[in-house]
Protein backbone atom coordinates (compact mmCIF):
# COMPACT_ATOMS: atom_id res chain seq x y z
CA UNK A 1 0.00 0.00 0.00
CA UNK A 2 1.24 3.46 -0.82
CA UNK A 3 0.15 6.98 0.08
CA UNK A 4 -1.07 7.21 -3.47
CA UNK A 5 -3.41 4.28 -2.85
CA UNK A 6 -4.75 6.00 0.24
CA UNK A 7 -5.23 9.22 -1.67
CA UNK A 8 -7.22 7.37 -4.31
CA UNK A 9 -9.32 5.75 -1.62
CA UNK A 10 -10.03 9.04 0.15
CA UNK A 11 -11.30 10.49 -3.12
CA UNK A 12 -14.07 7.86 -3.26
CA UNK A 13 -14.54 7.15 0.46
CA UNK A 14 -17.76 9.17 0.74
CA UNK A 15 -19.34 7.43 -2.22
CA UNK A 16 -18.23 4.06 -0.87
CA UNK A 17 -19.78 4.74 2.54
CA UNK A 18 -22.99 5.89 0.87
CA UNK A 19 -23.10 2.69 -1.18
CA UNK A 20 -23.10 4.49 -4.54
CA UNK A 21 -19.67 3.63 -5.84
CA UNK A 22 -19.94 1.69 -9.11
CA UNK A 23 -18.80 -1.96 -9.16
CA UNK A 24 -15.21 -1.93 -10.32
CA UNK A 25 -14.23 1.14 -8.31
CA UNK A 26 -15.94 -0.35 -5.27
CA UNK A 27 -14.08 -3.62 -5.60
CA UNK A 28 -10.76 -1.77 -5.75
CA UNK A 29 -11.67 0.40 -2.77
CA UNK A 30 -12.67 -2.61 -0.71
CA UNK A 31 -9.43 -4.36 -1.57
CA UNK A 32 -7.57 -1.33 -0.25
CA UNK A 33 -9.61 -1.20 2.97
CA UNK A 34 -8.84 -4.82 3.58
CA UNK A 35 -5.19 -3.96 4.08
CA UNK A 36 -5.31 -0.35 5.32
CA UNK A 37 -6.63 0.21 8.86
CA UNK A 38 -6.38 4.01 8.60
CA UNK A 39 -8.65 4.19 5.56
CA UNK A 40 -10.95 1.62 7.10
CA UNK A 41 -11.36 3.85 10.13
CA UNK A 42 -12.06 6.79 7.84
CA UNK A 43 -14.77 4.93 5.92
CA UNK A 44 -16.22 3.61 9.19
CA UNK A 45 -16.85 7.18 10.31
CA UNK A 46 -18.46 8.08 7.02
CA UNK A 47 -20.63 4.98 7.28
CA UNK A 48 -22.00 6.35 10.54
CA UNK A 49 -23.05 9.46 8.65
CA UNK A 50 -24.75 7.31 6.03
CA UNK A 51 -26.55 5.39 8.81
CA UNK A 52 -27.52 8.72 10.35
CA UNK A 53 -29.12 9.88 7.10
CA UNK A 54 -31.34 6.79 7.09
CA UNK A 55 -32.42 7.48 10.64
CA UNK A 56 -33.98 10.74 9.43
CA UNK A 57 -36.61 8.93 7.39
CA UNK A 58 -39.98 8.89 9.12
CA UNK A 59 -41.57 5.65 10.26
CA UNK A 60 -44.54 4.55 8.22
CA UNK A 61 -47.32 2.13 9.03
CA UNK A 62 -47.25 -0.84 6.63
CA UNK A 63 -50.51 -2.07 5.03
CA UNK A 64 -52.89 -4.11 7.18
CA UNK A 65 -51.91 -7.74 7.58
CA UNK A 66 -48.24 -7.09 6.92
CA UNK A 67 -46.93 -8.76 10.06
CA UNK A 68 -48.94 -11.89 9.34
CA UNK A 69 -47.66 -12.06 5.79
CA UNK A 70 -44.11 -11.71 7.00
CA UNK A 71 -44.33 -14.37 9.68
CA UNK A 72 -46.21 -16.70 7.32
CA UNK A 73 -43.42 -16.23 4.80
CA UNK A 74 -40.73 -17.34 7.22
CA UNK A 75 -40.42 -21.06 7.71
CA UNK A 76 -40.99 -20.65 11.38
CA UNK A 77 -40.62 -23.25 14.05
CA UNK A 78 -37.87 -24.71 12.02
CA UNK A 79 -34.58 -23.33 13.19
CA UNK A 80 -33.06 -20.97 10.67
CA UNK A 81 -29.63 -22.38 11.35
CA UNK A 82 -27.76 -25.11 13.09
CA UNK A 83 -26.32 -24.35 16.47
CA UNK A 84 -22.99 -23.62 14.84
CA UNK A 85 -22.88 -21.40 11.79
CA UNK A 86 -22.18 -23.39 8.70
CA UNK A 87 -19.47 -22.56 6.24
CA UNK A 88 -21.48 -20.16 4.08
CA UNK A 89 -22.64 -18.05 6.95
CA UNK A 90 -19.22 -18.07 8.53
CA UNK A 91 -17.71 -16.79 5.29
CA UNK A 92 -20.23 -13.97 5.08
CA UNK A 93 -19.48 -12.98 8.65
CA UNK A 94 -15.76 -13.17 8.06
CA UNK A 95 -16.14 -10.97 4.99
CA UNK A 96 -17.97 -8.32 6.93
CA UNK A 97 -15.41 -8.42 9.69
CA UNK A 98 -12.53 -8.33 7.25
CA UNK A 99 -14.00 -5.16 5.79
CA UNK A 100 -14.37 -3.94 9.31
CA UNK A 101 -16.60 -0.94 8.88
CA UNK A 102 -19.85 -1.63 10.55
CA UNK A 103 -23.10 -2.48 8.91
CA UNK A 104 -22.47 -0.48 5.81
CA UNK A 105 -19.59 -2.90 5.72
CA UNK A 106 -21.89 -5.79 6.40
CA UNK A 107 -23.99 -4.74 3.43
CA UNK A 108 -21.00 -4.31 1.17
CA UNK A 109 -19.74 -7.63 2.43
CA UNK A 110 -22.86 -9.53 1.48
CA UNK A 111 -22.99 -7.74 -1.84
CA UNK A 112 -19.60 -9.14 -2.79
CA UNK A 113 -20.10 -12.44 -1.04
CA UNK A 114 -19.46 -15.27 -3.45
CA UNK A 115 -17.44 -13.20 -5.87
CA UNK A 116 -14.42 -12.69 -3.68
CA UNK A 117 -13.35 -14.69 -0.70
CA UNK A 118 -12.21 -12.77 2.35
CA UNK A 119 -8.45 -12.55 2.26
CA UNK A 120 -7.60 -11.90 5.86
CA UNK A 121 -10.42 -12.11 8.37
CA UNK A 122 -9.58 -10.60 11.70
CA UNK A 123 -9.29 -12.95 14.59
CA UNK A 124 -12.50 -12.03 16.42
CA UNK A 125 -15.18 -14.69 16.44
CA UNK A 126 -18.11 -13.98 14.18
CA UNK A 127 -21.49 -13.18 15.69
CA UNK A 128 -22.03 -12.97 19.38
CA UNK A 129 -20.61 -15.23 22.02
CA UNK A 130 -24.08 -16.04 23.24
CA UNK A 131 -25.40 -19.47 22.50
CA UNK A 132 -28.80 -20.39 21.35
CA UNK A 133 -29.39 -23.92 22.59
CA UNK A 134 -32.08 -26.06 21.10
CA UNK A 135 -33.34 -29.57 21.63
CA UNK A 136 -36.24 -31.85 20.88
CA UNK A 137 -38.82 -32.45 23.58
CA UNK A 138 -39.32 -36.22 23.86
CA UNK A 139 -41.83 -38.24 25.80
CA UNK A 140 -40.53 -40.95 28.12
CA UNK A 141 -41.00 -43.40 25.23
CA UNK A 142 -38.94 -41.10 22.97
CA UNK A 143 -41.75 -39.72 20.88
CA UNK A 144 -40.91 -36.17 19.69
CA UNK A 145 -43.54 -33.72 20.95
CA UNK A 146 -41.94 -30.34 20.43
CA UNK A 147 -38.85 -28.20 20.52
CA UNK A 148 -37.25 -26.03 23.13
CA UNK A 149 -34.86 -23.12 22.68
CA UNK A 150 -32.77 -21.51 25.37
CA UNK A 151 -30.94 -18.24 24.81
CA UNK A 152 -27.91 -17.83 27.03
CA UNK A 153 -27.39 -14.13 26.38
CA UNK A 154 -28.54 -11.38 28.67
CA UNK A 155 -31.43 -11.26 29.15
CA UNK A 156 -31.71 -14.96 28.53
CA UNK A 157 -34.91 -16.71 27.65
CA UNK A 158 -36.51 -20.05 27.02
CA UNK A 159 -39.07 -20.75 24.37
CA UNK A 160 -40.83 -23.94 23.45
CA UNK A 161 -43.52 -25.30 21.20
CA UNK A 162 -45.34 -28.40 22.36
CA UNK A 163 -47.74 -30.73 20.63
CA UNK A 164 -48.64 -33.58 22.96
CA UNK A 165 -51.81 -34.56 21.12
CA UNK A 166 -55.31 -34.90 22.58
CA UNK A 167 -55.57 -36.68 25.89
CA UNK A 168 -52.16 -35.52 27.08
CA UNK A 169 -53.31 -34.86 30.60
CA UNK A 170 -54.94 -38.24 31.08
CA UNK A 171 -53.60 -41.74 31.31
CA UNK A 172 -50.96 -41.22 28.61
CA UNK A 173 -48.48 -39.68 30.95
CA UNK A 174 -46.53 -41.80 33.33
CA UNK A 175 -45.64 -41.02 36.92
CA UNK A 176 -42.32 -39.36 37.43
CA UNK A 177 -40.55 -42.23 39.16
CA UNK A 178 -41.04 -44.53 36.18
CA UNK A 179 -38.76 -42.43 34.03
CA UNK A 180 -35.86 -43.43 36.22
CA UNK A 181 -34.17 -40.17 37.10
CA UNK A 182 -36.74 -37.82 38.47
CA UNK A 183 -36.68 -38.27 42.22
CA UNK A 184 -33.42 -36.50 42.95
CA UNK A 185 -34.90 -33.07 43.49
CA UNK A 186 -36.74 -33.28 46.74
CA UNK A 187 -38.98 -30.33 47.34
CA UNK A 188 -39.67 -29.69 43.68
CA UNK A 189 -43.28 -30.77 44.00
CA UNK A 190 -44.52 -27.44 45.21
CA UNK A 191 -44.31 -26.19 41.65
CA UNK A 192 -46.78 -28.57 40.08
CA UNK A 193 -49.20 -26.71 37.86
CA UNK A 194 -52.97 -26.68 38.03
CA UNK A 195 -55.01 -29.06 35.94
CA UNK A 196 -54.83 -28.10 32.25
CA UNK A 197 -51.45 -26.50 32.66
CA UNK A 198 -47.98 -27.91 32.37
CA UNK A 199 -44.90 -26.68 34.13
CA UNK A 200 -41.38 -26.42 32.88
CA UNK A 201 -38.16 -26.96 34.79
CA UNK A 202 -34.67 -26.31 33.55
CA UNK A 203 -32.17 -28.98 34.52
CA UNK A 204 -28.57 -28.43 35.39
CA UNK A 205 -25.56 -30.65 34.93
CA UNK A 206 -25.20 -31.07 38.71
CA UNK A 207 -28.61 -32.78 38.87
CA UNK A 208 -30.53 -29.86 40.32
CA UNK A 209 -33.38 -28.20 38.48
CA UNK A 210 -35.23 -24.93 38.61
CA UNK A 211 -38.89 -24.21 37.99
CA UNK A 212 -39.31 -21.51 35.34
CA UNK A 213 -43.05 -21.35 34.87
CA UNK A 214 -46.22 -23.01 33.72
CA UNK A 215 -48.53 -22.61 30.79
CA UNK A 216 -51.80 -24.03 29.48
CA UNK A 217 -52.18 -26.31 26.49
CA UNK A 218 -55.27 -26.27 24.32
CA UNK A 219 -57.67 -29.19 23.93
CA UNK A 220 -55.49 -30.66 21.21
CA UNK A 221 -52.51 -30.67 23.54
CA UNK A 222 -50.74 -27.84 21.74
CA UNK A 223 -49.10 -24.74 23.08
CA UNK A 224 -46.25 -22.30 22.69
CA UNK A 225 -44.66 -20.61 25.60
CA UNK A 226 -41.66 -18.51 26.36
CA UNK A 227 -40.26 -16.85 29.41
CA UNK A 228 -37.28 -14.76 30.30
CA UNK A 229 -34.93 -16.64 32.53
CA UNK A 230 -31.24 -16.80 33.18
CA UNK A 231 -29.69 -19.64 31.20
CA UNK A 232 -26.13 -20.44 32.23
CA UNK A 233 -24.56 -22.02 29.16
CA UNK A 234 -22.07 -24.18 30.99
CA UNK A 235 -24.45 -25.64 33.56
CA UNK A 236 -27.78 -26.03 31.80
CA UNK A 237 -28.31 -29.56 30.57
CA UNK A 238 -31.94 -29.83 29.57
CA UNK A 239 -35.54 -29.28 30.49
CA UNK A 240 -38.52 -31.20 31.75
CA UNK A 241 -42.25 -30.64 31.29
CA UNK A 242 -44.51 -31.85 34.09
CA UNK A 243 -48.25 -32.43 34.26
CA UNK A 244 -50.42 -31.29 37.14
CA UNK A 245 -50.01 -34.62 38.90
CA UNK A 246 -46.25 -34.39 38.72
CA UNK A 247 -45.85 -36.92 35.95
CA UNK A 248 -43.22 -36.23 33.33
CA UNK A 249 -44.71 -35.30 29.98
CA UNK A 250 -41.49 -34.66 28.10
CA UNK A 251 -37.81 -34.08 28.55
CA UNK A 252 -35.15 -32.36 26.46
CA UNK A 253 -31.38 -32.58 26.57
CA UNK A 254 -29.22 -29.86 25.13
CA UNK A 255 -26.26 -31.35 23.33
CA UNK A 256 -22.92 -30.79 25.02
CA UNK A 257 -21.25 -27.55 23.99
CA UNK A 258 -19.04 -27.62 20.90
CA UNK A 259 -20.38 -31.03 20.07
CA UNK A 260 -22.18 -30.45 16.79
Amino acid at each position, binding site marked *: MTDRDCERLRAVADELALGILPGQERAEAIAHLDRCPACREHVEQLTLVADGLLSL*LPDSEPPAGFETR*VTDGLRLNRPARRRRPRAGVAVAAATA*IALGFGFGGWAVGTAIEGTSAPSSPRSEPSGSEHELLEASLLTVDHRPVGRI*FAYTGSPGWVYMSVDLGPGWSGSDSRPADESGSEDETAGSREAYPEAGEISCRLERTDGTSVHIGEFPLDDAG*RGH*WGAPTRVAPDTVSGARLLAADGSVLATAHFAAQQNR
Partner: protein
Amino acid sequence: MIPRGTGGIRSARFAVSTGMRRLGLPLGRLSDEALLAGLATGAPEVALAFVRRFQRMVFGIAVAVVDDPQLAEDIAQQTFERAWRHAQVYDSRRGSVKTWLATIAHNLAIDAVRARNATPVSPEDLDALLGVVTRTPEQWALADDAASRIRAAVAGLPPQQARAVVMAGIYGMTARQISEFEGIPLGTAKTRIRTAMGKLRTVLGPERADHD
Protein backbone atom coordinates in the same frame (compact mmCIF):
# COMPACT_ATOMS: atom_id res chain seq x y z
CA MET B 1 -60.40 -17.57 24.89
CA ILE B 2 -59.92 -15.05 22.15
CA PRO B 3 -63.07 -13.89 20.40
CA ARG B 4 -61.76 -14.75 16.95
CA GLY B 5 -62.90 -18.24 16.11
CA THR B 6 -59.82 -19.79 14.60
CA GLY B 7 -59.34 -22.46 17.20
CA GLY B 8 -56.13 -24.06 18.31
CA ILE B 9 -53.49 -21.71 17.06
CA ARG B 10 -55.14 -18.63 18.48
CA SER B 11 -55.58 -20.17 21.86
CA ALA B 12 -52.02 -21.40 21.82
CA ARG B 13 -50.86 -17.85 21.11
CA PHE B 14 -53.02 -16.70 23.93
CA ALA B 15 -51.31 -19.24 26.16
CA VAL B 16 -47.99 -17.67 25.34
CA SER B 17 -48.98 -14.15 26.13
CA THR B 18 -50.65 -15.26 29.32
CA GLY B 19 -47.52 -17.03 30.40
CA MET B 20 -45.33 -14.08 29.57
CA ARG B 21 -47.64 -11.63 31.27
CA ARG B 22 -47.73 -13.70 34.38
CA LEU B 23 -43.97 -13.36 34.65
CA GLY B 24 -44.25 -9.63 34.19
CA LEU B 25 -41.96 -9.44 31.18
CA PRO B 26 -43.70 -9.61 27.83
CA LEU B 27 -41.69 -10.22 24.68
CA GLY B 28 -42.15 -6.59 23.82
CA ARG B 29 -39.81 -5.63 26.62
CA LEU B 30 -36.93 -7.86 25.61
CA SER B 31 -33.90 -6.12 24.19
CA ASP B 32 -33.53 -5.81 20.43
CA GLU B 33 -30.62 -8.25 20.55
CA ALA B 34 -32.54 -10.90 22.48
CA LEU B 35 -35.48 -10.57 20.10
CA LEU B 36 -33.19 -10.94 17.11
CA ALA B 37 -31.75 -14.07 18.69
CA GLY B 38 -35.30 -15.29 19.19
CA LEU B 39 -36.03 -14.66 15.52
CA ALA B 40 -33.25 -17.09 14.65
CA THR B 41 -35.03 -19.84 16.59
CA GLY B 42 -37.98 -19.67 14.25
CA ALA B 43 -40.22 -19.21 17.25
CA PRO B 44 -43.46 -17.70 15.90
CA GLU B 45 -44.26 -15.41 18.80
CA VAL B 46 -40.76 -14.05 19.00
CA ALA B 47 -40.74 -13.45 15.26
CA LEU B 48 -44.06 -11.63 15.53
CA ALA B 49 -42.74 -9.44 18.33
CA PHE B 50 -39.65 -8.69 16.27
CA VAL B 51 -41.67 -7.73 13.20
CA ARG B 52 -44.02 -5.58 15.28
CA ARG B 53 -41.14 -3.71 16.80
CA PHE B 54 -39.42 -2.82 13.55
CA GLN B 55 -42.01 -2.92 10.77
CA ARG B 56 -42.75 0.81 10.80
CA MET B 57 -39.09 1.73 10.51
CA VAL B 58 -38.43 -0.85 7.80
CA PHE B 59 -41.52 0.06 5.78
CA GLY B 60 -40.80 3.76 6.29
CA ILE B 61 -37.37 3.41 4.70
CA ALA B 62 -38.65 1.25 1.85
CA VAL B 63 -41.58 3.50 0.95
CA ALA B 64 -39.48 6.67 1.15
CA VAL B 65 -36.98 5.23 -1.32
CA VAL B 66 -39.22 3.46 -3.83
CA ASP B 67 -42.37 5.62 -3.46
CA ASP B 68 -44.61 2.64 -4.20
CA PRO B 69 -46.46 0.99 -1.28
CA GLN B 70 -46.78 -2.37 -3.02
CA LEU B 71 -43.09 -2.59 -3.86
CA ALA B 72 -42.20 -1.19 -0.44
CA GLU B 73 -44.14 -3.97 1.20
CA ASP B 74 -42.23 -6.58 -0.80
CA ILE B 75 -38.98 -4.96 0.23
CA ALA B 76 -39.99 -4.78 3.87
CA GLN B 77 -40.94 -8.44 3.76
CA GLN B 78 -37.61 -9.39 2.20
CA THR B 79 -35.85 -7.34 4.86
CA PHE B 80 -37.31 -9.48 7.62
CA GLU B 81 -36.55 -12.67 5.71
CA ARG B 82 -32.98 -11.57 5.36
CA ALA B 83 -32.72 -10.59 9.01
CA TRP B 84 -34.08 -13.98 9.94
CA ARG B 85 -31.57 -15.81 7.74
CA HIS B 86 -28.63 -13.67 8.78
CA ALA B 87 -29.40 -13.14 12.46
CA GLN B 88 -26.26 -15.12 13.11
CA VAL B 89 -24.05 -12.58 11.33
CA TYR B 90 -25.29 -9.75 13.49
CA ASP B 91 -22.67 -8.56 15.95
CA SER B 92 -23.77 -6.03 18.54
CA ARG B 93 -20.26 -4.62 18.79
CA ARG B 94 -20.66 -3.20 15.30
CA GLY B 95 -23.87 -1.28 15.83
CA SER B 96 -27.46 -1.54 16.87
CA VAL B 97 -30.01 -4.04 15.59
CA LYS B 98 -31.96 -1.03 14.32
CA THR B 99 -29.10 0.24 12.21
CA TRP B 100 -28.43 -3.24 10.90
CA LEU B 101 -32.05 -3.69 9.82
CA ALA B 102 -32.22 -0.19 8.36
CA THR B 103 -29.18 -0.96 6.23
CA ILE B 104 -30.68 -4.19 4.96
CA ALA B 105 -33.96 -2.46 4.09
CA HIS B 106 -32.18 0.41 2.40
CA ASN B 107 -29.95 -1.84 0.30
CA LEU B 108 -32.93 -3.84 -0.89
CA ALA B 109 -34.84 -0.66 -1.72
CA ILE B 110 -31.90 0.76 -3.68
CA ASP B 111 -31.58 -2.51 -5.60
CA ALA B 112 -35.26 -2.30 -6.50
CA VAL B 113 -34.92 1.31 -7.65
CA ARG B 114 -31.92 0.43 -9.78
CA ALA B 115 -33.72 -2.54 -11.30
CA ARG B 116 -36.58 -0.21 -12.25
CA ASN B 117 -34.08 1.57 -14.45
CA ALA B 118 -35.90 4.89 -14.35
CA THR B 119 -34.89 8.15 -12.71
CA PRO B 120 -34.89 7.29 -9.00
CA VAL B 121 -36.74 10.42 -7.98
CA SER B 122 -38.73 13.30 -9.40
CA PRO B 123 -37.71 16.87 -8.53
CA GLU B 124 -40.94 17.34 -6.58
CA ASP B 125 -40.40 14.20 -4.51
CA LEU B 126 -36.83 15.22 -3.80
CA ASP B 127 -37.98 18.58 -2.47
CA ALA B 128 -40.65 16.90 -0.37
CA LEU B 129 -38.17 14.45 1.13
CA LEU B 130 -35.68 17.22 1.84
CA GLY B 131 -38.43 18.94 3.75
CA VAL B 132 -39.13 15.81 5.75
CA VAL B 133 -35.55 15.00 6.70
CA THR B 134 -34.73 18.55 7.74
CA ARG B 135 -37.96 19.32 9.56
CA THR B 136 -37.19 20.12 13.18
CA PRO B 137 -40.32 20.47 15.25
CA GLU B 138 -39.82 22.29 18.50
CA GLN B 139 -39.96 19.19 20.64
CA TRP B 140 -36.91 17.84 18.82
CA ALA B 141 -34.92 21.03 18.93
CA LEU B 142 -33.48 20.33 22.35
CA ALA B 143 -32.62 16.70 21.72
CA ASP B 144 -28.93 16.03 21.36
CA ASP B 145 -28.86 12.50 20.00
CA ALA B 146 -27.01 11.62 16.83
CA ALA B 147 -30.14 11.76 14.68
CA SER B 148 -31.06 15.28 15.83
CA ARG B 149 -27.55 16.52 15.20
CA ILE B 150 -27.46 15.00 11.72
CA ARG B 151 -30.89 16.45 11.00
CA ALA B 152 -29.78 19.91 12.05
CA ALA B 153 -26.57 19.55 10.09
CA VAL B 154 -28.40 18.55 6.90
CA ALA B 155 -30.77 21.49 7.40
CA GLY B 156 -27.74 23.76 7.71
CA LEU B 157 -26.09 22.63 4.45
CA PRO B 158 -26.21 24.81 1.35
CA PRO B 159 -29.25 23.57 -0.63
CA GLN B 160 -27.25 21.99 -3.47
CA GLN B 161 -25.13 20.01 -1.01
CA ALA B 162 -28.18 18.87 0.93
CA ARG B 163 -29.77 17.74 -2.32
CA ALA B 164 -26.65 15.86 -3.35
CA VAL B 165 -26.28 14.04 -0.05
CA VAL B 166 -29.97 13.08 0.06
CA MET B 167 -29.93 11.86 -3.54
CA ALA B 168 -26.87 9.76 -2.77
CA GLY B 169 -27.64 8.63 0.77
CA ILE B 170 -31.38 8.03 0.50
CA TYR B 171 -32.06 7.32 -3.17
CA GLY B 172 -28.74 5.62 -3.84
CA MET B 173 -28.04 7.81 -6.87
CA THR B 174 -24.49 7.64 -8.14
CA ALA B 175 -22.41 10.77 -8.65
CA ARG B 176 -23.02 10.43 -12.40
CA GLN B 177 -26.79 10.25 -11.92
CA ILE B 178 -26.68 13.28 -9.66
CA SER B 179 -24.66 15.23 -12.22
CA GLU B 180 -27.22 14.40 -14.92
CA PHE B 181 -30.16 15.16 -12.66
CA GLU B 182 -28.73 18.53 -11.66
CA GLY B 183 -27.15 19.33 -15.03
CA ILE B 184 -23.71 19.79 -13.50
CA PRO B 185 -20.30 18.26 -14.29
CA LEU B 186 -19.48 14.91 -12.66
CA GLY B 187 -16.63 16.47 -10.69
CA THR B 188 -18.99 19.04 -9.22
CA ALA B 189 -21.41 16.34 -8.10
CA LYS B 190 -18.59 14.44 -6.40
CA THR B 191 -17.37 17.60 -4.70
CA ARG B 192 -20.85 18.39 -3.38
CA ILE B 193 -21.18 14.89 -1.94
CA ARG B 194 -17.76 14.97 -0.35
CA THR B 195 -18.12 18.45 1.11
CA ALA B 196 -21.53 17.64 2.57
CA MET B 197 -20.33 14.36 4.08
CA GLY B 198 -17.33 16.11 5.58
CA LYS B 199 -19.60 18.61 7.34
CA LEU B 200 -22.01 15.94 8.57
CA ARG B 201 -19.15 13.85 9.90
CA THR B 202 -18.05 16.58 12.29
CA VAL B 203 -21.36 16.54 14.17
CA LEU B 204 -21.01 12.84 14.95
CA GLY B 205 -17.60 13.12 16.54
CA PRO B 206 -18.42 12.46 20.23
CA GLU B 207 -20.59 9.47 19.34
CA ARG B 208 -17.69 7.51 17.96
CA ALA B 209 -16.94 5.58 21.13
CA ASP B 210 -20.39 3.97 21.08
CA HIS B 211 -19.69 2.16 17.89
CA ASP B 212 -16.40 0.48 18.65
